């Protein structure tokens, strides 16, 4: 197992390097000159001195290393090659600079990251709590009327895009019933503390959470049902029934354990993919999460933050794959033995 993990880690490192280069190339392709933008703000100071203005621009370009070739810039960004004689890159803890917020990029991301993780964890547990029992129920009562109805519902559920679900939920919960606010993070101007703050925040989070849970119900229920169906058709289940075990034991002890293998991968994969998936939800509801920062940075031309977030998404994705592989090994002894 250890050897296997090591092999996977090594492989992951290679892919990360390749992808980071790809991301960096895309980043340099953006037709946006940071030095030009910086120097534009100084235009008034150089009003009567166009030569000095040009000189300052050249200086800035040199300072930012924009004149170097792309390989040197890439290594400089990673931190393994010097730019202007200084090692200043990811490895040295310099993650770039946010020009919108005028702060180091990583500082900008701390608060949104907390929010995103909170929403995602909450939505995952909520969705799992509903879909697992529902999926098992459908698999056990396969072909019944209730199963068919749920199946039809799940097709609709995973076909409808999240922004339509969001519009419908806003319309129903916020406008028709008027119980939740439409968007935002907290009551404007409020300064609550303790439990009051938490409840206020939950009131604002409720609608996004409902939308996220609803939109993941369809796909997850189908997945759980499919893996449970597969598990129920195994020979060991027939044996278990033949030797007279109670149906509950057969389902929850024998079949469920076997069905768990694909579900574990789903849960991990889903949880990690949600980091990029919540781009949509955070933008619709104006939640201060990483997805909102991402879109705002894109539209605000704050590309160093974009680059950092891209790398974050890449690493999260790769880590997810690794975790899935390892989890497979833990859940299914056969895989462990084979490796």
């Amino acid at each position, binding site marked *: 197992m250890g050897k296997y993990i090591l092999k996977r880690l090594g492989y992951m490192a290679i*892919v990360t390097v*390749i*992808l980071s280069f*790809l991301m960096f190339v*895309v980043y340099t*392709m*953006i*037709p*946006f000159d940071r030095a030009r933008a910086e120097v534009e703000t100084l235009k008034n100071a150089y009003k009567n001195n166009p030569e000095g203005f040009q000189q300052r621009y050249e200086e800035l370009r040199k300072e930012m290393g924009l004149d170097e070739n792309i390989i040197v810039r890439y290594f400089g960004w990673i931190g393994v090659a010097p730019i202007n004689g200084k090692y200043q890159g990811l490895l040295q803890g310099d993650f770039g600079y946010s020009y919108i917020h005028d702060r180091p990029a990583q500082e900008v991301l701390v608060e949104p990251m907390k929010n995103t993780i909170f929403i995602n964890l909450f939505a995952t547990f909520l969705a799992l709590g509903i879909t697992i029992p529902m999926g098992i129920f459908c698999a056990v009562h396969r*072909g019944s009327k209730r199963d068919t109805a749920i199946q*039809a519902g799940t*097709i*609709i559920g*995973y*076909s*409808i*895009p999240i*922004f*339509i679900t969001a*519009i*419908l939920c*806003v*319309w129903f919960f*916020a*406008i028709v019933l008027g119980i939740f606010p*439409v*968007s935002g993070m907290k009551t404007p101007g409020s300064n609550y503390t303790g439990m009051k703050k938490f409840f206020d925040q939950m009131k604002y989070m409720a609608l996004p959470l409902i939308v996220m849970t609803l939109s993941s119900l369809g796909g997850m229920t189908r997945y759980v049902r499919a893996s449970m169906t597969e598990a129920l*058709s195994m020979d060991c289940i027939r044996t278990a029934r033949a030797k007279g075990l109670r149906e509950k034991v057969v389902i929850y002890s024998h079949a469920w354990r076997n069905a768990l293998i694909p579900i574990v991968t789903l849960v991990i994969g889903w949880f990690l993919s949600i980091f*990029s*998936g919540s*781009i*949509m939800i955070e*933008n*619709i509801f104006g939640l201060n999460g990483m997805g909102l920062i*991402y*879109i705002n940075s*894109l*539209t605000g031309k704050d590309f160093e933050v*974009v680059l950092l*977030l*891209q790398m974050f*998404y*890449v690493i*999260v*994705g*790769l880590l997810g*794959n690794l975790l899935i592989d390892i989890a497979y090994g833990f859940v299914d002894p056969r895989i462990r033995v084979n490796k």
Partner: protein
Amino acid sequence: MNNQKKAPKKLFIAECLQKMFFGNLFGRMRGEEHTVENERYDSPSKLAVKRFFRKPLATTAVIVLLSMFLFVFIGPAFDPVDLSYMEAAHANVAPNMNMMKLPDSLKDGAVSITSNGSFTLGLDEEGDVHVWGYYGTTSKEDRVDVMKIPQEVQDANIRFAAAGSDHCIAIDDKGKVYGWGMYDNAQYSHDGTLIAMCIKQPTELLNGTLNVDNVKQLICGNQVTAILMKDGSLYAWGNDQTGAPNMQAVMKLAKENANFDEIAFTNSGMFALTDEGEFVTGGSAKYDNLQILDENGATKVVNIFDYIGTRKIVDIAASGDSVVLLTDDSEVITLGTATKPPVLAEGEKIVEVSAGTRHFILVTDNGKVYAWGNGKLGQTDVPEQLTVAGAVDTVIASGFQNYAYKDGEFVDAWGLKGYVFGTDNMGRDIFNRVMNGGRMTMTIGAVAVIVATIIGVIIGCISGYFGGWVDMFLMRVTEIFGAIPFLPFALVLSSILQASNLNEDTRIFIIMIILGLLSWTGLARLVRGQVLAEREKEFVTAAKSMGVSQRRIAFKHILPNVISVILVSVTLDFATCMLTESTLSYLGFGVQLPRPTWGNMLDGCRNSVVIQNYWWRWLFPAIFLSITVICINVIGDTLRDVLDPKSEVEK
């Protein structure tokens, strides 16, 4: 000779068709022995098709999806999207079809029918006013809704009535002036919040009365109103800054000369005609220039007053953006954006010119109707039977509709009936945009999925069939592509495209390719796995032992077995790609407005005001997108079921 040549060709086509519909499409071509009579067993694909259509849900989905395809691909041919089109007067109109529903009591004679927006106000000969059409308001106040005629107006015997863009003014037989509708910009009363910036309604009209027998004309424009008296005096008020910036100047002229004969409002100007036949612009230079053809056929620009010269103007009419002048020698001069007036038949005389919001109508002395101007909503499509002589004697053009009368009896109406799906904030027809947007969304989805399928199948087949280091290399490439975070990466790429100065079509095409390039990895893995599994099966070994060539094994034995997997995956990916496009457009990174797609139509509906008040703006694109995706998913799921031999055994 010819016949001999044709016969086998036709047979071949027939055979192909038969194979397409009755199976064996993907199987081995069996040549001559394949006839309907001696086929005792159904081929697997024929069986699959049979089983597919035995499921009512899947059959319905196929029918709905096909009609959706027809709707979005054939519809735009009849009703193409006009990207520069907008109609401010019809912004946010709810779905309705009663904009041309003339009330019965107006059918045997109308005193006036006026419209400046989406609703029309009519005054019948009994002195009752009627409002029809649509008016949208978010205000809770009753008097703001022009559709609700105040009780006192209903009770009074109205002599004059006119509709503005969001208000109505009426004068009864005692000379009392009534107003209802929006009042914020001093359309009537002194209660408006923005009244300081506008010209107030004269106090004597607000509290007292005027001599109704002395009233010559009552006319309303874009938030402005004017009452012209027979003695030449003029009352005018309203939001002059938007509705008529030259109102003060015109009022001053009226006071000095007291010789006005007729008033006309465009959406942003007030124009008048004096009893000496002069055209009064009040200093507005908007319509000073007239484009005419000189003797060589080239266009040249002349000053309108030089052009008129000593001739007299006998009639004036104004649409929202154009003014028409009728001279005493029967020339029709069109100023502004409207097209040139039609050429009348020899010997015909013009009786009257009347103006809608975007078009003009002209009736001649022998009762023929001509129309010109902007007829995008059908205003200028005069019915065939009215273009003959003697068909009508009056045509009232109001807003976007025309009502024709003959001897005081209503004959026919033409123009805009309404909007089936309503309009958006720019006054564009949502039905048209849903249709054209669907074409864009589906095209992008289809191209992206085709690109993804081609790459996926090629990579998967090569990888699975050759194995070894080729497989190793290709799978690593696949994994790297698979590890790219899809949505963020697509967003970055399209924002790069946005910043570059590509033209919109190229940009959309590149977006399609990018979507395809980012979504082939799943299919490649699937195909590779399937090919690997098939390669080891007994029938391949058997074929090998019989000396069948490698190529034949790959394409005739293995590929048909993989195609079912590809088919299912393509169907489901099509739905995913459509959704991705919608997501990108929704976030503002896909297809840009004004080009419609289902995604960017929903983009305008993100705030609660729109969700609450203008439900038609999000409901229709949402329904169409959802239904299409649901149908595709149902078809894909059913295909997977029927193509998988195991599933039949299970049931």
